[in-house]
């Protein structure tokens, strides 16, 4: 007997449809029994069960009943609303009712698929159907809210996926902000020498795209920049970007390279060089860097550490060095964001028995890429760590860190292919070298990949099917002096095997970026169990995320090769272009609103909203929801102590009725009467 009720048992006519979904539901739940039972609910006007409600004939049932039986509400008991809520809302609308006068009962994913107990499943189905009926009678007609889409887009990450997405959108005539954290775009692809299976020179196919992106009228390249804050929602994001100080005045720099030449400091190139070779304290990552302006590494710069030197400033012909340059904060408004932040190579130091970082002549795959590159620190020669000795034998270890419960359970997709590529390149650079590939399976699924493998088989590489247990310097047998000893299994021979080699290359897998979780939180893109960004649907929406307006492309979504990264970059661009083409997007009308006449001005709700959608009117002393900013979470509705905030489509009355309905078989008669 409460004093305040929104509605008192409205007289609605509900149509109930229990779907068989073939045998997916009907195999476990007695659909006929459920639809027959539903007729006992006083709100129900018609109740049916049917084979496939989502088929056109099923939908027509709904439309027909609305028109012929004067239904005012519709309930479909079938799959998850994430599958077909849209379908049935549209059918409801075609029948002549507002699409929000519809509710679904999920008796498949939450019912028949989740239990073998037929009795319990049918009982649960009744509860869920009853809940939906009791809820739907309190639904109100609602209209979707149009939101304008800002045609500018931000692409975060300037690797091949990001560059592809940016160019596709720019060529379509839309403005793009391409944000890249390093001093140059290019990503990991710029580190690679040759690409499988065609053995194209990576830089040759990448650099033209980099240049195009750097020069395109529609692309604003924000290099050496990072995103710090993202506010807003689809169509209307406000992004804060920190343009870090290069200490180089871009307008004056001619990329002549004199500063780099004159800089006396040499540090190991951990970034582009993957730890092989050196760079200066003021440097461009590689000669074809876009943009060509160098970056000053303050941590290793003599001036910033001791106040001396300043050689670069002295020798710069255009006086473009500015030690006092500060970071700049830019506020950028965009309509959509594409995350193409890439991957990090698995750190083989995590596997101490492989000796990476301890044993000189154990190299990571990216180090080896830099080595065989003609413009790399060894001039393209395959040599040991001493910089001059050519190895006579090279071992290439597949699956380092991948397919391994101790590290990453997943397969990193590209390592078999690049391991084969390395085998080929070693043979090419050192004819007569003994090359050993240690593998578990040979994964060569792409176009031309199997053919590449077959070609390799004829080049004399020794393939050993077996995991490597250790790589060590235990060179105690004669002839092994100074060599690395590989202890492995050979499953095809059924034996353990010991092999001395001069050099080892570890084909490490792809890890998500170390800060993927934080970046994800910044953009409200979740990460899956393996740490890569989660796509909205694994099959049908691989580049969308759960957050409207935020897309993902490339290796940040999961390990993949270059063609797939390019494809995803294009797919994300296409998804964004679709929204820009639409101009406005219709948002779900699930919003909060304050009943201002009753608001006491307590201000509890003011800190509830992460979208700053609640403002306080100082004059009237009431709080108010800005509808355009509200995303419909309902947190403020639950927080309001006087119950004056209404959450459309998730009102207290609706949810409390749903709770009542779901407890049909355990409620007492007294409760049913007074509900």
């Amino acid at each position, binding site marked *: *007997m*409460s*004093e*305040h009720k929104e509605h008192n048992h409205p007289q609605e006519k509900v149509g109930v449809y229990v779907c068989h979904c073939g045998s997916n539901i009907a195999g476990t739940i007695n659909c006929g029994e459920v639809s027959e039972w539903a007729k006992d609910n006083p709100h129900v006007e018609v109740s049916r069960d049917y084979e496939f409600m989502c088929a056109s004939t099923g939908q027509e049932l709904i439309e027909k009943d609305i028109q012929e039986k004067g239904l005012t509400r519709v309930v479909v008991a079938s799959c998850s609303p994430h599958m077909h809520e849209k379908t049935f809302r549209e059918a409801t609308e075609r029948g002549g009712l507002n699409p929000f006068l519809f509710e679904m009962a999920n008796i498949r994913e939450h019912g028949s698929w989740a239990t073998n107990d037929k009795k319990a499943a049918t009982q649960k189905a009744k509860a869920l159907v009853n809940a939906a009926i009791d809820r739907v009678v309190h639904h109100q007609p609602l209209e979707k809210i149009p939101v304008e889409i800002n045609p500018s887009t931000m692409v975060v990450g300037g690797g091949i996926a990001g560059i592809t997405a940016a160019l596709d959108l720019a060529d379509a005539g839309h403005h793009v902000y391409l944000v890249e954290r390093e001093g140059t775009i290019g990503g990991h692809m710029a580190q690679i020498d040759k690409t499988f299976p065609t053995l194209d020179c990576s830089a040759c196919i990448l650099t033209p795209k980099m240049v195009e992106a750097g020069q395109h009228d529609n692309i604003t390249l924000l290099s050496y920049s990072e995103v710090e804050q993202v506010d807003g929602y689809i169509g209307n994001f406000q992004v804060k970007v920190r343009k870090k100080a290069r200490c180089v005045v871009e307008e004056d720099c001619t990329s002549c390279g004199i500063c780099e030449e004159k800089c006396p400091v040499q540090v190991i190139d951990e970034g582009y060089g993957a730890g092989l070779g050196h760079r200066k304290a003021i440097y461009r990552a590689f000669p074809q860097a876009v943009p060509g302006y160098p970056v000053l590494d303050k941590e290793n710069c003599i001036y910033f550490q001791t106040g001396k030197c300043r050689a670069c400033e002295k020798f710069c012909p255009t006086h473009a060095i500015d030690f006092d340059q500060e970071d700049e904060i830019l506020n950028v408004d965009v309509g959509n964001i594409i995350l193409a932040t890439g991957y990090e190579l698995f750190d083989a130091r995590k596997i101490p028995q492989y000796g990476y970082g301890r044993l000189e002549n154990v190299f990571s795959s990216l180090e080896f890429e830099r080595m065989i590159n003609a413009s790399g620190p060894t001039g393209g020669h395959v040599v040991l760590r001493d910089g001059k000795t050519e190895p006579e034998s090279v071992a290439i270890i597949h699956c380092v860190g991948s397919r391994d419960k101790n590290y990453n359970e997943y397969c990193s997709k590209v390592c078999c292919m690049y391991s084969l590529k390395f085998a080929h390149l070693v043979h090419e650079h050192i004819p007569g070298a003994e090359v050993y590939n240690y593998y578990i399976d040979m994964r060569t699924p792409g176009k031309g990949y199997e053919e590449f493998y077959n070609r390799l088989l004829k080049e004399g590489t020794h393939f050993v099917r077996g995991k490597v247990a250790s790589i060590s310097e235990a060179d105690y047998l004669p002839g092994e002096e100074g060599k690395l000893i590989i202890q492995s299994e050979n499953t095809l021979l059924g034996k353990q095997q010991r092999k001395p080699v001069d050099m080892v290359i570890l084909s490490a897998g792809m890890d998500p970026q170390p800060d993927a979780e934080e970046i994800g*939180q910044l953009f409200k893109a979740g990460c899956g169990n393996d740490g890569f960004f989660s796509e909205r649907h694994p099959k049908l929406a691989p580049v969308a995320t759960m957050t409207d307006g935020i897309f993902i492309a490339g290796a940040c979504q999961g390990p993949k090769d270059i063609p797939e990264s390019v494809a995803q970059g294009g797919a994300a661009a296409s998804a964004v272009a679709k929204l820009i083409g639409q101009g406005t997007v219709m948002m779900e009308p699930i919003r909060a609103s304050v*009943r201002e*006449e*009753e*608001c*006491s*001005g*307590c*201000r*509890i709700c*003011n*800190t*509830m909203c992460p979208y700053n959608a609640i403002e*306080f009117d100082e004059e009237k*002393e009431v709080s108010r929801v800005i509808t355009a900013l509200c995303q419909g979470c309902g*947190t403020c509705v*639950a*927080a*309001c*102590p*006087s*119950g*004056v905030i209404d959450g459309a489509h998730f009102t207290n009355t609706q949810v409390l009725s749903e709770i009542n309905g779901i407890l049909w078989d355990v409620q007492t008669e007294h409760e049913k009467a007074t509900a």
Partner: protein
Amino acid sequence: MTENGKPKLAMYWASSCGGCEISVLNIHENILAVDEIFDLAFFPCIADFKVSDVEGYPDNYIDVCLFNGAIRNSENEHMAQLLRQKSKVMVAYGACSHVGSIPALSNLTSREATLKKVFLDNPSLDNPHEVLPQTSVHTPEGELTLPEFYHTVKKLDQVVDVDYYLPGCPPEPPQIWAVLQVVAGALTQGDPLPPAGSVVGAGNSAVCDECDRVKHEKAIDRFYRPYEIQPDPEQCLLEQGIMCMGLATRSGCGALCPTVGMGCRGCYGPPAGVEDQGAKMLSAVASVIAAGDETMEEDELETLIQEAVDTIADPSGTFYRFSMSHSILQRVKDANGKGAA
């Protein structure tokens, strides 16, 4: 009984403190107007009436009955039913009959525990034979009866239909006088009455609406017992960590308590849009606890929040101080000693 045609007024006290009767007198000189308009049909507090008087009335003889006090025992219930039968309009007057109020705090314990504490387990008692009150005892002079002591304290509308609710512990004089005028107008001039089931003599917002303290966005680190700190006289009490039920309490009292530095205790019951006053208060208060944020590890987050929540000494006793009977669960399941303070 009078036959002069004046509207008949009754006022009865069930399980109450008597404050509601005094509040009627608190309307000062207006009491004379009340005396002019109404005839008293039953008002045991101030005049000599007997239950048999009421039993003798025809049904609906009494025009307005102001029933205060909660339903603690069978006599309270019997009188509620009797007066309902004999009255046209039944008003749940004051917090006890409206939402349960202080007597309903007994729902934090049990009948057994209460009787034990009062009659058996008490240092100042001398009851060697462990005598407990009985509903019926035969003596040579005849049978003596006592009402049955209920396990659960109820509010008035849980035993009879109620026409209007007049909140407050006690209701405020201006509100009482306003309601009496409306009723008098209806009875003597045929003026319309508010819809049955309405809350009258109160506002349609929460106490914060009437409170002059300055309110900011809320982020509370911890709570204090009222004796622990000296609150700033201008700022919202809740923001300073003093529990104040005002945000989850119906307006109408003029925010008397917060004005003098005492946190509202919630005696006007829940605001119009709320079913369970305690639940809403707990939701609001917890929502603005400043402990933890989404960047923390789960364990750290839980610890910080628990520490802040632990500064609230007695959540049920505080949030449900007045509204136990009106709440969704109404009483505790086990008297586990954690309910009763």
